[in-house]
C-alpha cells in the first residue's frame, strides 16, 4: 500500500501527460497542482475531483467519510444519467461530529459501511477520505480492508482529501484507487475482438447515448465506461478490453496509460464533440481494434456509418447557415471542449471571437490555433467587465460557457448557452452537434432580447446602467489613448503573473536592469512564474519582444 504522498508524486510524474513531458525534473516534482491563492481561488478540491470522476458508477454506494460539509453541501449535483441502478444518486456520509474528531472516526466509518451493506447491498462501496479525518489520522485503507474481509464485499478506499490539491488532482487520485483496488479483480463472462473501454466520460445529460447506438451498430462493445453509466463489475474486468478511448484529456490519463502499461490496452485521446471529432474517434476505435485482431472489414463498416451520419448531420446543419451568417460567438470554456466545439461551430458558419484556454493544456492551445489560425484570440483570465464589454461592443452575439460566467452575459441581456456539466441538453456525436445548433438558434433569435434591451419608459435611453458602464469604459480607454504617459502606465500595469501579482512593467524593468534572457532569470528577479507557471508563455513572449540584451553577464 503506497502512501498518499507517494501516490501524488507518482501522479505528478505522469509521462502520458504532454504538459508534464515539457517540464524539468524539479518542476515535475512540484506537481501540476496550481498553487492556490488565498482569497483568489475558485475551483473545487481534490475530494470534489475524485467524487466527480467516480460518482457516475451507478451501482456503487459512494460513502463520504467526513463532516457534513463535504457531502451534505454537494450531493446529487451532477447530471450524469444511468440506465440502471439509481444507488449512485443516494448520498452516504459519516457526518462526523465533535466526538469523532476527539476519539477518531474509524469506528463510525466501519459501522457506516456495515449499515450501507445491510440496507442497500451494493456490489461495492467506494469510501472517500476528506480533510478532517485525514488530519486526525483515520486510516481509511485499514478500515476498508477490515470491512471488505468481514463483509466479503469490495470496499474501496479513495484517498483524495480536499486539501491535497485541486479537482484535477482528485480526478487522477480517483483513477489511482481504481487501478490499485478494482481494475483486474474480476473476469468477464466472455470477450470479443470488439471490446473497448471509454475512459473519462461521465455521460452528462445522457449524452454518451447519442454515440453509443453507432458503436452498437458496428458491433463494438463497451466493456467498461469509466465512469458514465458504469457498473462495478464492468470496471473490475475492464482490463480485458482490446482498446481504449480517453475522452476528457486531463481527467484520467493515468488510468489510460497504466492500463496500457499493465494490460497492453492501447488508447487514443479523442472526443465526440463536433462532427469531425466524432468521425475521427470512430475511425481511431476501429483502427485500434483491427490492430489488436479484429477483422479489417470493421473499418469499411465504420466508414460507411461515418459517411451516412456526416451526410445527415451536414444536411441538418445546412439550414442554420443563413441564420448564423455574420453571427459571432464568444466561447469561454476549459480544456478539451474548447477545440472540439470550435470546429463544429465553424462548420455551421459561426464566427468565433474568442475561446478561453485557462484550463486547456498547451496541446489544446495548439489545436485551437490550428483550427482558428495563428491569430486566434484566446482569452486568459478575462474579467467579467471585459467579457461584458466584448459582448456589448457587439463583437459577440452569443456567449457559450460554463455555469459561472453565465450571469455576465445574461445580465447584459445577451444570449448565453450552457455547455458545461450543469447543462440540460446533450451535445455529443452527430446528433448532439445538431442539437447544439438548434439551441444556439433558439437563444439568438428569442424575441425577448429586444424587449429586455430597451430601457424602461421612465429611463432615458442614454442613462441606463449598460450605457453608463460602457461610457465609463470608453472614457477610460479614450483617456488612455489621448495621454501617452497614461497609456504607457496602463500597458505596464498589465498583470502577467497572477499568482505572484507581477505586472508587465516590473518584468520589463528587471529584464532591462539585469539583462535577463530566460524565464528562470525573470523568476529569480521578480518572482513572476513562481506560482502555477501558467504565465511562462507570456514571459517568453515578453523576452522575445525585448531588444536583444547586449550582455548576459549581469544574469
Amino acid at each position: 500500500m503506497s502512501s498518499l504522498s507517494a501516490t501524488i508524486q507518482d501522479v505528478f510524474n505522469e509521462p502520458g501527460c504532454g504538459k508534464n513531458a515539457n517540464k524539468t525534473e524539479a518542476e515535475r516534482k512540484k506537481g501540476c497542482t496550481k498553487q492556490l491563492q488565498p482569497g483568489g481561488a475558485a475551483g473545487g478540491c481534490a475530494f470534489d475531483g475524485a467524487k466527480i470522476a467516480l460518482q457516475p458508477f451507478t451501482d456503487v454506494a459512494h460513502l463520504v467519510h467526513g463532516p457534513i460539509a463535504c457531502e451534505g453541501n454537494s450531493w446529487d449535483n451532477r447530471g450524469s444519467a444511468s440506465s440502471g441502478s439509481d444507488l449512485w444518486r443516494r448520498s452516504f456520509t459519516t457526518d462526523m461530529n465533535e466526538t469523532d474528531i476527539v476519539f477518531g472516526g474509524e469506528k463510525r466509518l466501519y459501522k457506516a459501511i456495515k449499515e450501507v451493506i445491510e440496507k442497500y447491498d451494493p456490489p461495492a462501496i467506494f469510501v472517500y477520505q476528506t480533510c478532517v479525518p485525514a488530519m486526525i489520522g483515520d486510516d481509511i485503507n485499514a478500515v476498508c480492508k477490515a470491512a471488505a474481509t468481514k463483509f466479503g464485499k469490495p470496499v474501496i478506499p479513495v484517498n483524495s482529501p480536499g486539501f491535497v490539491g485541486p479537482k484535477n488532482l482528485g480526478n487522477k487520485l480517483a483513477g489511482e484507487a481504481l487501478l490499485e483496488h478494482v481494475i483486474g479483480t474480476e473476469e468477464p463472462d466472455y470477450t470479443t475482438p470488439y471490446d473497448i473501454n471509454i475512459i473519462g466520460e461521465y455521460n452528462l445529460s445522457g449524452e454518451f447515448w447519442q454515440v453509443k447506438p453507432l458503436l452498437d451498430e458496428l458491433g463494438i462493445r463497451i466493456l467498461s465506461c469509466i465512469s458514465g453509466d458504469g457498473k462495478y463489475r464492468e470496471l473490475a474486468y475492464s482490463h480485458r478490453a482490446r482498446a481504449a478511448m480517453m475522452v476528457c484529456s486531463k481527467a484520467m490519463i493515468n488510468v489510460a496509460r497504466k492500463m496500457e502499461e499493465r494490460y497492453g490496452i492501447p488508447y487514443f485521446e479523442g472526443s465526440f464533440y463536433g462532427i469531425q471529432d466524432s468521425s475521427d474517434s470512430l475511425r481511431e476505435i476501429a483502427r485500434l481494434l483491427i490492430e489488436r485482431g479484429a477483422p479489417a472489414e470493421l473499418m469499411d463498416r465504420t466508414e460507411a456509418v461515418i459517411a451516412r451520419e456526416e451526410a445527415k448531420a451536414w444536411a441538418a446543419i445546412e439550414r442554420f447557415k443563413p441564420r448564423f451568417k455574420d453571427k459571432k460567438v464568444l466561447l469561454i470554456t476549459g480544456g478539451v471542449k474548447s477545440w472540439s466545439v470550435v470546429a463544429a461551430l465553424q462548420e455551421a458558419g459561426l464566427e468565433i471571437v474568442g475561446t478561453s484556454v485557462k484550463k486547456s493544456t498547451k496541446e489544446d492551445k495548439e489545436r485551437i490555433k490550428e483550427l482558428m489560425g495563428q491569430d486566434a484570440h484566446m482569452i486568459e483570465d478575462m474579467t467579467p467587465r471585459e467579457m461584458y464589454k466584448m459582448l456589448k461592443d457587439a463583437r459577440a452575439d452569443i456567449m457559450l460557457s460554463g455555469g459561472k460566467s453565465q450571469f455576465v452575459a445574461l445580465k447584459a441581456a445577451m444570449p448565453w448557452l450552457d455547455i458545461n456539466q450543469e447543462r440540460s441538453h446533450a451535445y455529443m456525436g452527430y446528433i448532439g452537434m445538431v442539437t447544439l445548433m438548434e439551441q444556439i438558434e433558439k437563444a439568438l433569435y428569442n424575441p425577448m432580447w429586444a424587449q429586455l434591451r430597451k430601457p424602461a419608459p421612465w429611463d432615458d435611453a442614454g442613462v441606463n446602467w449598460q450605457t453608463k458602464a460602457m461610457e465609463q469604459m470608453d472614457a477610460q480607454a479614450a483617456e488612455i489613448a489621448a495621454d501617452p504617459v497614461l497609456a504607457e502606465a496602463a500597458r505596464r500595469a498589465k498583470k502577467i503573473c497572477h499568482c505572484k501579482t507581477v505586472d508587465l512593467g516590473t518584468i520589463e524593468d528587471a529584464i532591462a536592469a539585469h539583462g535577463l534572457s530566460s524565464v528562470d532569470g525573470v523568476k529569480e528577479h521578480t518572482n513572476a512564474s513562481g506560482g502555477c507557471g501558467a504565465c511562462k508563455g507570456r514571459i517568453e513572449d515578453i523576452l522575445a519582444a525585448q531588444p536583444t540584451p547586449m550582455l548576459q553577464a549581469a544574469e
Partner: protein
Amino acid sequence: MAIVTTSKKACSVNPLKMSQPIGGSFAFMGLRGAMPLLHGSQGCTSFGLTLFVRHFKEAVPMQTTAMSEVATVLGGYENVEQAILNIYNRTKPEIIGINSTGVTETKGDDVEGFIRLIRQKHPQLEKFPLVYVSTPDFKDAFQDGWEKTVARMVEVLVDPVEAGAARDAARVNVLPGCHLTPGDLDELRTIIEDFGLKPSFLPDLAGSLDGHIPDEFTPTTIGGIGVDEIATMGQAAWTIAIGAQMKRAAEAMQQRSGVPFRLFERLCGLAPNDEFVAFLSEISGRPVPAKYRRQRGQLADAMLDTHFHIGGRKLAIGAEPDLLFDLSSMLHEMGAEVAAAVTTTASPVLERIKTQEVLIGDLEDLEELAKARDCDLLITHSHGRQAASRLKIPFYRAGFPMFDRLGAGHQLSVGYRGTRDLVFDLANLVIADREANHQPTPDTWRTTDSGLQVVPPQLH
C-alpha cells in the same frame, strides 16, 4: 408536545442537513459590498458556492483561504492574511466576513488572534470591518451558522448606545432567520413601511440575491444592508426578530444598545400575522391599513377553499427547525396531520411542534417514516426529489436548497398574502395528484363476498 430524538445511525443517508459555515457565509451575503470568506480548503467554499448559485441562479461572491495540507498542519495565519489582503486589494469590499470550517477548527486556528496581528501589520486594515465567526462543520447545522453569524455582526458592527439616549421612534430593526427568502423580506418591508415605519434588515438578502441587475459589476455582493446602516441600528425603537434562531442576535442588540425586541417565531398562517400586524399597529400608533384588512379576508377565504384538500392530509416534513415549526404549525392549523417531522439541529421550538416525535435525522429517515405512516404530502428542500418519486406523493419544495425549480428567491411564506398563495399552491398540488393518480374506477369501492374491501380506497 413532541419528543425530540436523534438518529442513532452511523451513516447519514441522503442528508437533510447542510453545514454551518455556509450558513454563516449566507448571512454575510445580506450585507452590501461583502465578501464572505471561508477559512478552509478550497472545496469548502466551492461546494457552498455551487449550491447558492444553483439555488438563486445568480452570481454569488464567496472566497476561500485555500488551505493546503501543509498550511493546515502548520496553521493558517499566512493564508488568512493573504486572503484578506487579496480580497481587500482586488475586490474593494466594504466588509469581509470570515467563517471557520472543520479543517481549520480541527487544527484549532485562533483566527481572532490572526486578525489582531493582521490589523497591526497592515495599518490600512486597522479600521476595516472584518467579522469572524467560529463555525466548525462537525457541529450544528446551516441554521446555526446563520444564527451565530448574525449575532456576531450585531456584536461587532452595531455602535453601542448609551442608556437613555434618544431613539428614532419610526426605526425598526428586522432580524430575519435564514428560512425567509428575499421575496419574504420584500413582503415584510412593504408591510412594515405601510405602517410608516423605517425598517433595517440584518441581513438583507433581498438587496443582494433578489436577482436585480446591478449598476456596477462588482465581485462582492451587489446590495444588502450597508455597514454604515448597521452601525446605527442601536438607535431604533424596536427590534423584530423572526424565527427562534434570531433570539440570540436580538438579545445581543438589546444588550449592546438597549433596543427592546419582539420575537415572532412564525410569520406563516393567520394567527401569527394577526399578532404581527397588531404589533406594527401598536408600535407605529397607526390603524391597520385597509390593504391588510382585505388581505386578511383573502387569506381567510383561501383557508376556506383549501381546507377541503389540506385538512386530513398526512404530512411528512423535513426542514431546519424554524422552517419546520413555521410550516408544520400552519398546516396543523389547516387540519393537516404532522405525521413525520425530521430536522437538522436542536432548537427550543422543536418540542412545540404539533406532532408526536421530531427526529434530528436525514431524508432516508423521513422517507421511511413517510412510507410507514402512509403520508400523502411531502415538504422538504430539493434533495427530497428522489424520495418523492419513490413515495409517489405530492411534493412541495421548501427551504434551501431549491436547485431543480426556478424562482426560489421569490417563494413566499410570510404575511397574509404569502400564506394565501402558499395554501393555494399546496391545495393545487393535492388536486393535481388526485387527478393524476387517484381517479376512481368501477372497482375502487367493490367489496368481496366476506364484505371486506378488496383494495382500500386510495382517494385522498
